């Protein structure tokens, strides 16, 4: 393939490359939310967790010179945010959706506050693997430069499918999410399982956030996430609480998010902002198409407040 032959193919290629790049935070947040929701809780605060992860990952990478340490720190902060959500929701009569909204605002505000000193300096970034070593086309090289964290996410999705289906932990998680009474009767600590599941969800969402600041777009700023976290929560519903479908849905959303920039790169500027809103419009359209007031969604954990 020569450079000349590529022509208008650069748009789908850029969308494909963008899908892989943009989808990573969607993938991590949706897998995390999948774990949390399987246990019967919904955490809308992952938007705040995502931004906190982006900020703390960037800061730790800056101080330690190790981006992977930043990823780990972001996960740790995510666990703390999850712990906060999980333990407040364990109090009587506290609504998990409302706490999620509160933590979303709190997380974004706190990241903004603590992240002020890190807006200027450059932190070391995460490495990526070039899968287009065989080609000389710069567009192809750009599209097939795949970040290692994305590959971790790709491996994580089938692992979670397997874990939910066959491991002891997966079964306990699903029992708690399907019927708290049954889980109690079997002697499992419902509240503890849910708090742990929320922490696990926060861990993954924090990692997703570190991808934002440590790879793409690749710098910390206050408005680094504009709703990716909440879109990913909606994506779990669309993916029917199936980690494998979460992966495909993330790619789809990533592609939608990459549409605006790739059209701009070939000189189509009209409707730039509307194309940037494509993931939100897509989410809304998919939710309208797939939800129904008559029946609960297939695959929905029965204890989930959102489907009751």
């Amino acid at each position, binding site marked *: 393939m020569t450079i000349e032959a590529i022509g208008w193919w650069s748009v789908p290629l850029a969308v494909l490359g963008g899908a892989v790049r943009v989808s990573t935070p969607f993938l991590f947040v949706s897998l995390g939310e999948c774990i949390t929701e399987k246990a019967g809780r919904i955490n809308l605060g992952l938007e705040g967790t995502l931004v906190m992860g982006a900020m703390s990952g960037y800061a730790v990478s800056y101080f330690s010179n190790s981006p992977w340490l930043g990823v780990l720190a972001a996960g740790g902060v995510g666990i703390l945010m999850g712990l906060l959500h999980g333990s407040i929701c364990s109090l009587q009569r506290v609504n998990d959706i409302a706490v999620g909204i509160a933590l979303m605002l709190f997380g974004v*505000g706190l990241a903004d506050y603590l992240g002020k000193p890190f807006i200027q300096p450059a932190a070391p970034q995460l490495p990526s693997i070039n899968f287009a070593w065989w080609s000389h086309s710069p567009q192809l090289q750009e599209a097939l430069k795949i970040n290692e964290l994305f590959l971790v996410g790709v491996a994580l999705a089938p692992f979670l499918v397997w874990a939910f289906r066959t491991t002891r932990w997966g079964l306990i998680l699903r029992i708690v999410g399907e019927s708290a009474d049954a889980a109690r009767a079997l002697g499992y600590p419902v509240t503890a399982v849910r708090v742990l599941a929320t922490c696990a969800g926060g861990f993954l969402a924090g990692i997703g956030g570190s991808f934002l600041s440590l790879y793409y777009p690749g710098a910390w700023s206050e408005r680094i996430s504009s709703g990716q976290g909440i879109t990913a929560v909606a994506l779990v519903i669309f993916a029917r609480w199936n980690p494998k479908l979460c992966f495909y849905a993330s790619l789809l959303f990533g592609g939608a998010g990459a549409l605006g920039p790739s059209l701009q790169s070939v000189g189509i500027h009209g409707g730039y902002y509307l194309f940037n809103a494509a993931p*939100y*419009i897509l989410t809304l359209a998919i939710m309208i198409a797939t939800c129904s007031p008559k029946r609960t969604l297939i695959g929905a954990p029965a204890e989930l407040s959102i489907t009751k």
Partner: protein
Amino acid sequence: MAEEIATAVSAPQPASFATAPSRWRLGAGAEAVLVPAGAFAVALLLFGIFVALAGVNPLAVYGYMVQGAAGSWFSVQNTLTRAAPLLLTGLCTALPAQLGLMIIGGEGAFVIGGLAAALAGVALRDATPLVAQLAMAAAGIAAGGLWIASAGALRYWRGVNETISSLLLNYIAIAILNQLVEGAFRDPASLNKPSSPSIGDVHMIGSIPGTEVHWGLVIGVVFCGLAYLLIRHTTIGFGARIAGGNIRAARMVGLSIGKLVVLICFLGGAAAGLAGMIEIAAVQERASADIVTGYGYSGILVAFLARHNPLAIIPVAILLGGISASGGLLQRHLGLPDAATVVLQGMIFVCILASDAIYGRIPWLQGAGARA
């Protein structure tokens, strides 16, 4: 409201029916004030610890907050000006909450209402001020109302979760705003910062005589009062509260839930849309990215802090207006980032929600017979 029903159900039977109900009611009234106030105090304490960890004296922070919110005539006016939009965006969450819906789309309704008002204002530049102002208000109300009503309609007829859909609508509204002010609706003269043409100086709604506070404050207070009357003293409000408390009972007595959902969501969105119109017509004069103010998100907190009671929104909005008014002083004198007040708001929000757990559990607030 749902909480009241839950409390009534979970509280054990009073020992004596003759004396307990009146005492219980008195206790519940005190509880409705004392529990949020206590949660607010805890949040202030946590914020004090938070700034102390950053090496700032918490007492100085509290001092500057009082000074920045109410220390002078200037700061009082600043507080009231910031409270004005919160009165209306608070209603955007509080009204649908009567039905048990959790709408967080106030920001989107605010933006789309402001945008529609600016379009109407620019189109009617040559009309008399009163006509233009009424048309702008109508445009803001209609746009904001339809924006949130669509989230309610999607919930009722398609089962789409209203919290997620209304949040997504926020981002879509902002995208539409940016698209228009950078494209079809852009004033060619706005070079560095894209914005729409001006609505015209004569069409601006002015300030309350003797103050710098615009009329939005009065409009907001009036609307909170009207919302209270609607919820407490009309059949629509009664129906909404029944549906919010027990949807099956509401169906059984023949309420048309769909109409109620769309109407109440429309009214909530209309309030936020009107706030957007006031932002254009009293503050900014033209639509630009600057009308994405965050008032919609603060309105969510206002509604929760007021426990979705429209009258309680008035003092709560003034309180939060005061907190955000003090941000400038904290930044100038103590070097705290401007996000400090947002952090405090987040802490208040979390504490308020956590305080839901202690309703009906403090013996001395329940009256003698209610809880042994």
